[in-house]
């Protein structure tokens, strides 16, 4: 821990706040452009930048003991490991065999919002659309 507290000039705060408002506007603007799956990547990048700016200036990480910054960067790294590797699944699912997605959608039919299907993906009639039927799937 640093012994003396750093006093941030008001100007820094105002610049950072302006940057945050600007990035918020960019987020809204970007949501209107269809970039396909890149939309979520862009939104996460902007949000990550904003969080980083808040931690660096508002939360004084820049002037604090460097161990705290290391822990902060480490936690961001773990989060990005989780998101990036998960995206290698969700973004490429069915890329080789499209039918690989079918079981996921078929199981999803356990939810009442989708019609139930049999083992071959054909819809079942409404009378069987009951939770008792669901259990037999397993």
């Amino acid at each position, binding site marked *: 821990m640093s012994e003396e507290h750093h006093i941030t000039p008001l100007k820094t705060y105002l610049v950072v706040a302006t940057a945050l408002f600007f990035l918020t506007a960019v987020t809204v603007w970007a949501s209107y452009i269809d970039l396909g799956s890149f939309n979520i990547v862009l939104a996460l990048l902007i949000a990550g930048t904003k969080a980083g700016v808040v931690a660096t200036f508002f939360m004084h990480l820049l002037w604090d003991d460097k161990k705290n910054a290391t822990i902060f960067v480490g936690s961001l790294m773990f989060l990005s490991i989780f998101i990036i590797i*998960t995206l290698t699944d969700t973004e*490429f699912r069915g890329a080789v065999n499209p039918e690989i997605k079918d079981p996921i959608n078929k199981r999803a039919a*356990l939810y009442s919002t989708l019609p139930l299907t049999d083992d071959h993906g054909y819809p079942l009639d409404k009378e069987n659309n009951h939770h008792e039927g669901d259990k037999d799937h397993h």
Partner: protein
Amino acid sequence: MGDTNQNYLTHPKGIMSWLLTLDHKRIGLMYLFGGLFFFFVGGLLALGMRAELAAPGNDFVSNDTYNSMYTLHGAIMIFLFIIPAIPGALGNILLPLMLGAKDVAFPRLNLFSFYLYSIGAIFFIYVLLSGGVDTGWTFYTPYSTTSNTNVMSTTMGIFIIGFSSILTGLNFIATVHKMRTPGLTWYKLPLFVWALYGTSLVQITATPVIAITMVLLMLERLLGIGIFDPAMGGDPVLFQHFFWFYSHPAVYIMILPAFGIISEIIPVHSRKKVWGYKFIAYSTLSIAFIGFLVWGHHMFTSGQSVLSQIVFSFITYFVGIPTGVKIFSWMLTMYKGQVSFTPPMLYALSFLFLFTIGGLTGIFLGAVALDIHLHDTYFVVAHFHYVMQGGTIVAFLGGLHHWWPKSFGTMYNQTIANIAAIGVFIAFNGTFFPQFLLGLRGMPRRYATYDPQFVEVHSYSTFWSGILGISIFIGVMNLLWSLRKSNKLDPGTNPWGALTMEWTHTSSPPHPHNFEEEPVLTHGPYDYDKVIVKPTFKK
């Protein structure tokens, strides 16, 4: 001070002095007995399942009861016994002693962790008594969002216990960084401390994710937010990503402390300096890191993309490297040493055999093509029991036997302990090795009944599971029986002639403040080539 016979077990006295204690050793003992209680409960559930599986058909329990039994067996063993047992019990008792510290860095937080564990345990007892839960310990969606059993209470229990685990990890990291006695540099730390440190890193980075997962599952059940529902833009397989992003590193939360125990037992009982100290220390950290990158190997049949199958399978093989480094280092430590077949050493030797089988079959399962064939069969059941029971629980029993005289100042009957250890080894293999064969022949896990062609192998496994239960019971009862008053050892006793600070610098059982004066380091933890310590055994 003054009275050198004063020890933490008897001073201060009274039930409140235990319930409100800030002494890490007492908190460790409370974890120990809590953990052993749930080990007993989980063990009874296991024996109940094996009894049901002795013959095909529903002989004792209904399918629904059986579903509850395997779910609770898994959840109780993992969340209430294996994860907290080694760090919570042995870690709490030993970490400050090994560092020459008076206590952990945050004693009050330590007690709070124990109470969080207890509250989580109450949720589990409620679930146990109120009809159980049938999703399996993995709570996969979509079934867990629609099951009408006690999913909410169980996930709430796990959520709370998770915080106990995070706070213990945080406490241990701060303790290792800040509480070492002067002169105790990182490379002079006992390897058990390195193992606890690696475990703590995983605990504080991974455990928040299981908390998030459990909250998302509860929200999905209560409000139908749709994060796991494709009809609303969600993804049921995403649940498995969330779940295994914690639960695979959790495997290392369970096995790393066991590695630490083995790294302590083998040099002491071989009277030899540990071989490859830095290799063992760094392999702990690299296992902790690689453990974060391989979770998808639990999901090879979930329908995840081919790209991630390949990535996960490839990275999974890397876990074998630091693990192999450890196994070979332990073997080289024993080489040309004076190996004595004491009870802790027998457990450590069992560990080497059983864990190696568990680890190597893990490599089989890490290969996508083979895993698609073996997924959800008894091969997987056998594999993770070899790792979890043959690895972690056997190491825990070994550690318990090794540090029992230190914790309680009493020595158990070593002949009975040896018989129990050998019994555990034989009966464990008798129970679980046949399950590899069952899995290869296609027997799926989580079924209360089966095709009659499997009956010989299943009944063989059931027979040995009974012997296994009896062996563990004898081993633990032998320990508890040693606690009677007439059995007290001399406080200066060092029955194994060990060199780590908890044996050489304080009495058995230790003083309430651990050390009567600040300990001065005179030798490294494994300097058996330089210092000769004779085992002492005075009554």
